[in-house]
């Protein structure tokens, strides 16, 4: 008996969990990102080689790390969903995909904007940029596959398989691209790996990394709630929730109008 009630209890509980976590994530993201960005832009010392252009590192490196991290998290969620038949796991996987893709886009864009003054070209087939580009393709694939199915439960499972195939491939892709890059390397110098970074340069980087992570968490909670509402459109608790939330908003609108 309990086993059958289980999944519904779980989605509702997941929804509540998102609601409680969400404000903390938003506050954390806001605080860390403002501190890290201001520190990185205004207070961190200049790089003796690259001047002030290196300050792009404070968004490029965190977004690059977390774009990979989000994909791995998606694959873990897919695995959990597959092994324990957990519908919420698939939902959180697909909730993470767009924000992961945005992180990949940011890493690519900032990489290009950093490359222009350093290499004189917007795009250079550097190992890290190429890996990021392929990662973006993997994200696109998962999102497109999910979108192609009408039945979202089936869609989640299918996208999960693809996320797992991708995650097995990421290290192989990474390794192959690095290897390919060393073979074909012309005059480009890898500006991205700085073997020794001064601590006053590193701190803002770590804070921003944390800030980006909080941001990903925050957006994921919102999107996971969306996913739950979408799938449980006909459950009484969702209907009650929709009515109460929309009603409270309308009340606010009314009182504003009344005040005028």
């Amino acid at each position, binding site marked *: 008996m309990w086993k059958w009630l289980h999944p519904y209890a779980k989605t509702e509980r997941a929804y509540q969990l998102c609601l409680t976590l969400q404000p903390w994530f938003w506050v954390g993201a806001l605080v860390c990102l403002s501190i890290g960005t201001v520190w990185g832009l205004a207070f961190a010392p200049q790089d003796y080689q690259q001047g002030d252009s290196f300050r792009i590192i404070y968004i490029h490196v965190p977004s690059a790390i977390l774009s990979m991290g989000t994909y791995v998290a998606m694959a873990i969620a897919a695995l959990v969903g597959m092994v324990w038949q957990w519908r919420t796991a698939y939902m959180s996987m697909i909730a993470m995909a767009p924000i992961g893709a945005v992180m990949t886009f940011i890493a690519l864009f900032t990489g290009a*904007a950093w490359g222009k003054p350093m290499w004189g070209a917007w795009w250079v087939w550097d190992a890290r940029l190429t890996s990021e580009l392929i990662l973006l393709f993997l994200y696109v694939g998962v999102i497109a596959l999910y979108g192609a199915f009408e039945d979202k439960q089936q869609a989640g499972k299918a996208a999960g398989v693809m996320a797992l195939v991708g995650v097995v491939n990421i290290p192989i892709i990474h390794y192959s691209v690095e290897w390919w890059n060393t073979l074909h390397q012309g005059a480009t110098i890898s500006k991205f790996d700085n073997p020794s970074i001064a601590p006053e340069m590193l701190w803002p980087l770590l804070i921003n990394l944390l800030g980006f992570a909080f941001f990903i968490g925050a957006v994921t909670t919102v999107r996971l709630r969306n996913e739950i509402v979408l799938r449980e459109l006909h459950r009484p608790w969702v209907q009650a929730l929709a009515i109460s939330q929309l009603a409270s908003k309308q009340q606010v609108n009314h009182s504003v109008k009344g005040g005028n």
Partner: protein
Amino acid sequence: MQFESLADFINMGGYAFYVWLSFGVTFAAMAIIAIQSFIKHRNLLRQVVVEQERKARIKQARQQQQDSM
């Protein structure tokens, strides 16, 4: 503070365009995905209410059909 003046800060040692473009696009992209998620949430809740009303209409129609029979 690494910069002597505000103008200096904005100039970013000559790299102003690249640095500010990167930060601008980054935060714009983050804002877009966040706002899009919230808008979707509101639309979904509206959809729930609409569906419910539709269901009520169908139920009513069926009731009437049964009554007339």
